[in-house]
């Protein structure tokens, strides 16, 4: 007992079981229902797209860390998450090389050129999606979308139909009962379960919701951004759409809102740190999304809204510093 060496370090001497890897694993688990829905509606071929995206993301991470002489951290699974999210943001018909370019861009440029994990100022998958959309607009928009089912044919997404004038705003009062039989309007039920055209992982609000609830239950994300984001879109659409309940529900379920609000806008690196900041993020992204959908040139505004809020994050963080305990109010 005389010549023992004890380890000495600063307290605390115990740490929680939380780890970056566990958090990323939770996100991957939460993304599985959406993947299953995509396979069900679009066929097994979407797996190829997802696989290519993930493999290129992880390989790029490894290569970048080798080149930059940084520790290899592909085991933290963060590149897998980025790969999955990018795949979820492209149409089922996306060619493999396009997905690969997106993955490489997301990891090499958006993530590692800015310092790696935790330092990207934008959501890497969304930034890559924006690049693909700008570079190959046809392959990324309406022409590329297919309707679900075996006889997958090119089909417009519900949002592009809305843009083309089939929206709820300029229609007579529609009840959900009539909607189901309407040719031009999408059934809310189909929207909810994902039986519609769209990107691989965005269509099934139900599957995404299950994943989101899991993440909230696990404490990985807070309800603040998803709730305020989706809620703002719903309420503003209700107002702008002429106070139709259909419009309220349609805009919440359509497009990439659930995917964006639950999985993209909550990206730790590019969203505000504080509770108040997260609410501002949700409100701001919701407002921008509705503005783009109703008044912009694009049918869908989720990705650009989130990207815009991403770049506003440092500013939001600066103005939402919490009141410290025991702070004395300055008397005027």
């Amino acid at each position: 007992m005389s010549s023992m060496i004890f380890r000495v370090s600063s307290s605390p001497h115990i740490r929680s079981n939380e780890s970056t890897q566990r958090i990323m694993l939770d996100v991957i688990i939460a993304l599985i229902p959406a993947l299953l829905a995509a396979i069900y509606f679009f066929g097994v071929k979407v797996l190829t797209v997802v696989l290519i995206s993930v493999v290129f993301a992880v390989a790029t991470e490894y290569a970048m860390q080798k080149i930059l002489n940084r520790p290899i951290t592909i085991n933290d699974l963060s590149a897998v998450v980025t790969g999955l999210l990018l795949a979820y943001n492209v149409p089922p018909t996306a060619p493999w090389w396009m997905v690969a370019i997106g993955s490489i861009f997301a990891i090499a440029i958006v993530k590692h050129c800015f310092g790696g994990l935790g330092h990207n100022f934008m959501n890497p998958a969304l930034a890559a999606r924006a690049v693909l959309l700008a570079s190959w607009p046809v392959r990324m928009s309406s022409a590329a979308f297919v309707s679900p089912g075996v006889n997958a044919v090119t089909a417009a997404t519900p949002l592009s139909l809305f843009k083309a004038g089939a929206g709820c705003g300029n229609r007579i009062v529609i009840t959900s009962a009539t909607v189901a039989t309407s040719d031009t309007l999408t059934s809310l039920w189909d929207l909810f379960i994902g039986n519609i055209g769209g990107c691989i992982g965005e269509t099934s609000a139900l599957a995404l919701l299950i994943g989101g609830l899991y993440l909230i239950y696990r404490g990985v994300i807070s309800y603040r951004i998803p709730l305020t984001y989706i809620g703002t879109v719903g309420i503003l659409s209700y107002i702008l759409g002429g106070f139709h309940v259909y419009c309220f529900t349609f805009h919440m379920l359509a497009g990439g809102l659930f995917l964006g609000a639950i999985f993209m806008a909550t990206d730790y690196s590019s969203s505000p740190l504080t509770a108040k900041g997260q609410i501002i993020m949700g409100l701001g992204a919701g407002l921008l999304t509705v503005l783009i959908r109703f008044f912009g040139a694009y049918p869908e505004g989720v990705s650009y809204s989130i990207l815009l809020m991403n770049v506003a994050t440092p500013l939001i963080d600066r103005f939402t510093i919490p009141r410290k305990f025991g702070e004395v109010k300055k008397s005027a």
Partner: protein
Amino acid sequence: MNLKTLSFKGGTHPPHNKGTTENLKVVQSKQPDTVAIPMVQHIGAPCEPIVQKGDQVEVGQKIGEAKGFVSVPVHSSVSGEVIAIEPRLTSGGSAITCVVIKNDMKDTVYEGIVPTAGIDKLSSEEIINIIKEAGLAGMGGAAFPAHVKLSIPPGKTVDTVILNGSECEPYLTADHRLLVERPEDVVDGLIIFMKALNVKKGFIGIENNKPDALEAVYNIVKGKEGIEVVALKTKYPQGAEKQLINACIDREVPSGGLPADAGVVVNNVGTAAAAAEAIKRGMPLIKRIVTITGKGVKNPQNLLVRIGTSFRDVIEECGGFVGTPGKVIAGGPMMGIAQYSIDIPVIKGTSGILVLTEEEAKLPESSNCIRCGKCIEVCPINLMPVNISNYALEDRFEQAESCNALDCIECGACSFICPAKRPLVDSIRVAKREILAKRKKAQSK
């Protein structure tokens, strides 16, 4: 007994690990061969030894005289001969003058140890003086002189005394056992503090993971006017002074201020029991309950240890180490201090000796901050630990200061929760030291 559970905002839930010792009765430790009693065991000025090498001393005899107001005397915990007065390593990490006494094992009590006139016959000043002379320093860990807390400077009014029995540090059960085994002394101590301060309202806050302690104290308090038992939510750092006040009476201690600025005096339940001991039996603070625990100790126990007994003696009494120990901590795992030697004395503030195994003592590798914001969620002071830490790691201490680094209470909840295992509180501590050093420099110019 139906108490509503109170708490504060923020905080985290480390595993309690109290099961090993929470039901073990406090056992009087063996008489040590020698004790080394440091002349500083409190916050404030060191004591001056008033004995010399070769002197015979007895149990309870004063051996160090307090120098200055913020200081308390120290007493011998054994009877025997002073064999050395020399600097020795202490749990704070520095060498401090210690009076080393060879125990004659006779346990002769000093003649001056007699019961006082009793709480009803003593005036406020007399009580405060007895508490000072008994060497009372906060026994929760910080060891702030008790009589200083009880001497309220003019201009401040205190209307409440709160006893801290939350014991939110994992592993430790010293306060828990005290509450279960000696609840009268704790309540009497509270009454003594209330009389000294002339206040009518007293609280005893206990975390609700100690239902037996809550019940024991509740049964004593029942029918006593102005005293209330508060069940606190089990959450770390519930026992932090400011968080305790906030939970019990919903007041906030102003930033940079003391509890007295919120009209409150907080004392540990151990300090209260020691005050009762001093008033009722005249015995100064010479022993304390220490929880010796952790997977690295053969027989974890709650021992009543004489001040000055070495960690080595105490650990040996608990059967020694299991295998090769990894870490020996004075205090709990969240805020305790890791020791590099076990040849250091138990002092008034030693609430526990925790021995972690080699496996448990492994330092986690830190990786990139992923900005999850969990450190902000758990911070009981509502700080943004990630920001302060980032500035501190880049030596940008001015920015760290503007992020309120000095308000940090160093509870370590941020480092505990961090998934990337960042050295959050470590770097904030560095920032605090740098900021204070700079302020001192600026003042002396």
